[in-house]
């Protein structure tokens, strides 16, 4: 596939690796924010290719994983409402909430449909005018504009039975919270490529300016990630942390202005509850006043009951980069992809699933 295969070129990758080995003299810790990058790194054994001076940590960039149990419980409670059809991305189905999961309530008769896109959810709403369709809106800045677009379309078409449970989260504010916590010390950040395709590279400037941490926006093929690591090594060896884009074919400094415009028309920033990090002010999106009628939270009175965290699961610590799946006593034993205890084992981009599938070295 064009723009994919070229960025998997083994010879070019080998050359980047040997340059990194030659140039890297001081020990640095880099975090890949995005779960998509974690998958690339695991799948291609990139950690093992890097010199011991370059340490890689996984970050909180897995939308399924960071969805708090309380929010998951809300989605499950909505699924139990009579006359409601839940439309959701497939990854959410198996995540265990406090008392149940979407999969389990589906087995008990709830109408839950797996969709690939909000376009599909709208289609379900069109075909089921006597029911309410609730889309479980998880995701970062990459996905939020597609939700905004669906709400605008629903409005234009006069679709009144479409609602969104907005659990969207914003990446720069959570990075700030993570850095302010002082729990993890970082020298460089591999910034999420498709989040940045929307927001651009400028929202990362504060990381370099205020925290002295290098930032490189990366694509998702192995060559992209290696190139980004090399750029960070260069920056840090020179002692000049700044924001650069390695993923230039997909990301412009200003981002996608049209997508930002749609997002801003529908949403306003709000506090969001992150698994492992708790409530972070300004790190989420809720529907603004003008579009409140599409807000599932307001349209239904639901009581998700008390929140219970999965016992023994250290997903939250893993998402903050302070532990790895190997530190979890349940890993591979009580917790497997078939019987996941926490979301980091469910999501295809969760760290625990990555360690499980691609080895643990």
């Amino acid at each position, binding site marked *: 596939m064009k723009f994919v295969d*070229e960025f998997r070129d083994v010879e070019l990758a080998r050359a980047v690796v040997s340059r990194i080995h030659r140039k890297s003299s001081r020990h640095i810790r880099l975090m890949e924010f995005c779960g998509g990058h974690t998958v690339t790194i695991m799948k291609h054994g990139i950690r093992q290719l890097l010199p011991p001076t370059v340490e890689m940590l996984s970050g909180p960039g897995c939308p399924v994983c960071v969805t708090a149990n309380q929010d998951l419980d809300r989605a499950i409670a909505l699924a139990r409402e009579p006359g409601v059809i839940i439309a959701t991305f497939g990854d959410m189905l198996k995540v265990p909430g406090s008392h149940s999961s979407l999969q389990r309530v589906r087995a008990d008769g709830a109408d839950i449909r797996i969709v690939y896109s909000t376009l599909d959810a709208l289609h379900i709403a069109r075909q089921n005018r006597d029911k309410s369709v609730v889309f479980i809106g998880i995701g970062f800045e990459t*996905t939020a504009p*597609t939700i905004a677009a669906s709400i605008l379309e629903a409005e234009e078409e006069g679709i009144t039975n479409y609602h969104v449970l907005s659990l969207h989260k914003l990446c720069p504010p959570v990075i700030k919270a993570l850095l302010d916590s002082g729990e993890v010390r970082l020298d460089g950040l591999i910034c999420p490529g*498709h989040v940045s395709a929307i927001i651009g590279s400028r929202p990362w400037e504060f990381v370099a300016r205020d925290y002295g941490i290098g930032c490189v926006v990366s694509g998702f093929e192995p060559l992209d990630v290696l190139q980004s690591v090399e750029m960070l090594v260069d920056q840090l060896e020179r002692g000049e942390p700044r924001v650069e884009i390695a993923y230039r074919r997909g990301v412009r400094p200003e981002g996608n202005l049209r997508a930002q415009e749609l997002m801003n028309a529908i949403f306003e920033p709000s506090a969001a509850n992150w698994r492992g990090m708790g409530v972070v002010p300004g790190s989420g999106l809720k529907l603004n006043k003008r579009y409140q009628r599409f807000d599932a939270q307001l349209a239904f009175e639901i009581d998700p009951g008390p929140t219970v965290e999965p016992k023994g699961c250290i997903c939250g610590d893993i998402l903050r980069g302070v532990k790895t799946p190997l530190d979890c006593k349940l890993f591979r034993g009580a917790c497997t992809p078939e019987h996941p205890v926490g979301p980091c084992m469910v999501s295809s981009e969760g760290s625990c699933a990555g360690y499980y599938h691609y080895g643990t070295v």
Partner: protein
Amino acid sequence: MCLAIPALVKSIEGNEAEAELGGVSRRISIVLTPEVRVGDYVLLHTGYAINVIDEEEAEETLKLLTEMASLEG
């Protein structure tokens, strides 16, 4: 979740386009990329084109990496 894959735009009709990815054709929304033209590649995320791929930049990146690799010898 933030996965986006390159797709080639074959035809455009209003806010929608016919795009080809890995030999398969599908209808996508281009409401987030009104500037897209037939023959462009877009990054496709959950049914929406989220950006037009900059082919020149892609070539530049590969050229640079190839030059650096040949210096490495």
